[in-house]
């Protein structure tokens, strides 16, 4: 049948942003190739979410609904998505590069005996061959390798969060089909026993972001306050999260999210390639760093040389946030 298959991830009944972005890009490629876009969603009670994907551009949404699929388990999800893929035989299979999406993709590629391009930041169709070309960042995001799947089908790619626009409602709706599964309890070999979710505005969708780095030392309350007075979402560079000072979902760059903001204020980040690759879609970048030679200044529109812990309090006062 050909076509494009997108795995749609949901957690506790909420669609992942990254899946909606992949759905949007999948729709664009499906138009370009003149083929169908099929979404696959797994979970318990996902009927309404499946309908939403159908409204957002999927021609067909396969919904596997079962208490066994309530929580993500890499092996069980691989089993079900593999059978969905076999049922519709797509040429292209796209998955959002979330933690769960990445786990699924790696298992699925081996199960299907096919090639996988990881964390792509761009997807194109090669003229003439109609093959999928994926731009894969490597060496910390300083280099991009353009890759393709030379052996095996479907051509698989995981897609970095924040690089493509979210699929919007199209005014038409595709069909939702229930997908029957033959999964047994013992096929779900990892079980979630506890979960805590804290959803805020995702950094990749935010209009304004304040990003803190190691230069803020242990005074993260300062950039957080700056975020508050400027109505910005708060993000961090990777080393802060690695030190356990901030959660991983706030990380900006090649191992985290790409930003799409109008304004980003970056304080105390040196600006390694894996970080600055997350700033490519930002309209205006302001950077504060104590080192005049810092790499971050090559990626900023407005540069201030100064100690983040001294500049930020003054800036908060200037912006009417009182004394920090």
């Amino acid at each position, binding site marked *: 049948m050909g076509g494009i298959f997108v795995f749609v991830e949901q957690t506790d009944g909420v669609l992942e942003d990254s899946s909606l972005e992949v759905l949007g890009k999948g729709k664009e490629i499906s138009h370009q190739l003149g083929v169908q876009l099929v979404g696959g969603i797994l979970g318990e009670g996902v009927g309404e979410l499946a309908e939403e994907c159908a409204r957002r551009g999927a021609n067909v949404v396969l919904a596997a609904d079962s208490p066994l699929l309530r929580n993500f388990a890499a092996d069980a999800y691989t089993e079900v998505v593999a059978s969905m893929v076999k049922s519709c035989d797509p040429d292209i299979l796209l998955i959002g590069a979330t933690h769960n999406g990445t786990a699924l993709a790696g298992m699925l590629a*081996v199960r299907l005996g096919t090639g996988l391009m990881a964390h792509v930041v761009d997807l194109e169709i090669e003229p003439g061959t109609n093959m999928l070309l994926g731009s894969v960042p490597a060496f910390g995001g300083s280099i991009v390798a353009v890759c393709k799947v030379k052996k095996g089908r479907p051509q698989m790619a995981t897609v970095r969060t924040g690089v493509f626009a979210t699929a919007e409602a199209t005014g038409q709706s595709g069909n939702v089909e229930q997908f029957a599964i033959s999964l047994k309890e013992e096929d779900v070999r990892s079980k979630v026993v506890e979960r805590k979710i804290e959803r805020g505005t995702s950094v990749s969708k935010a209009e304004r972001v304040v990003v803190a780095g190691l230069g803020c030392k242990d005074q993260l309350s300062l950039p957080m306050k700056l975020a508050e007075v400027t109505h910005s979402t708060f993000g961090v560079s990777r080393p802060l999260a690695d030190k356990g000072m901030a959660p991983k979902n706030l990380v900006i760059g090649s191992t985290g999210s790409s930003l799409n903001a109008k304004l980003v204020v970056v304080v105390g980040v040196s600006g390694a390639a894996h970080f600055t690759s997350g700033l490519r879609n930002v309209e205006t970048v302001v950077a504060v760093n104590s080192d005049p030679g810092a790499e971050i200044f090559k990626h900023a529109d407005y540069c201030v040389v100064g100690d983040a812990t001294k500049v930020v309090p003054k800036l908060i006062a200037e912006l009417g946030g009182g004394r920090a």
Partner: protein
Amino acid sequence: MKLVVCMKITPKLEQVKFDEQKKTIVREGVENEINDADKNALEAALKIKDAQGGLVVVLSMGPPSFEPFLRLAVAMGADDAILLSDRAFAGADTYATSRVIAAGIAKLKPFDIVLCGEASIDGSTEQVPPSVAEWLGVPYVSYVSELEVAGEKLRARREITDGREVVETTPPALVSVQLGCNSPRFPDFRRKRWADKEFKLTTFNLQDLGFSIGDVGLEGSRTEVTGLSKMRSPERRKEFIQGTDEEIVRRLGQVIRR
């Protein structure tokens, strides 16, 4: 309990340069090191061994020049080290790499837990751990920050997009651990001398793993690189705001308020 730790030996990123003319990566003279997250995987394994005994085996794929890094892992506390090495393994993508690593691990059966770092610093695909799990037919739990063995079960705390969860599975299983989730121990001085001089490392080649050339390396890969380029960054103003502290802050305030 047998714990297998997969280790990648990676180039020091800051030394890697890109030749814009030739569109190739210049690796000459670049030093290598054990991938950071894989050191965290080793530490997680050694902690389990400390708590309840067991055997820790480190395993890597690469040329014989990687041997010293495996010896370093032994000096840190690993009991055995395996190098999967054959010219035919070169040029592998994640599909062919994971196939070879899984075959190496399969030779160590029965194993209980395989531990990997969440990603390598050079490729950062995060695809090898789940792919190895699939070749081995074992469950996979990723992004683990804490790992404990509780009776028959393996309990793992992991991060997901907007939160965290605790997952239970039963060995044999494969887990990938988060970069920085623990502090890797330093090599023991006396053990280091033993590891360097007396320890016998095991090497498996193509035949040992029962593969033919088409299964592995470049030929066994499913993807190919058609070109390399430097990541394009948008042009920026790069305007340095200068003056007294007050002037700088006032100007910055204008930029932010707009």
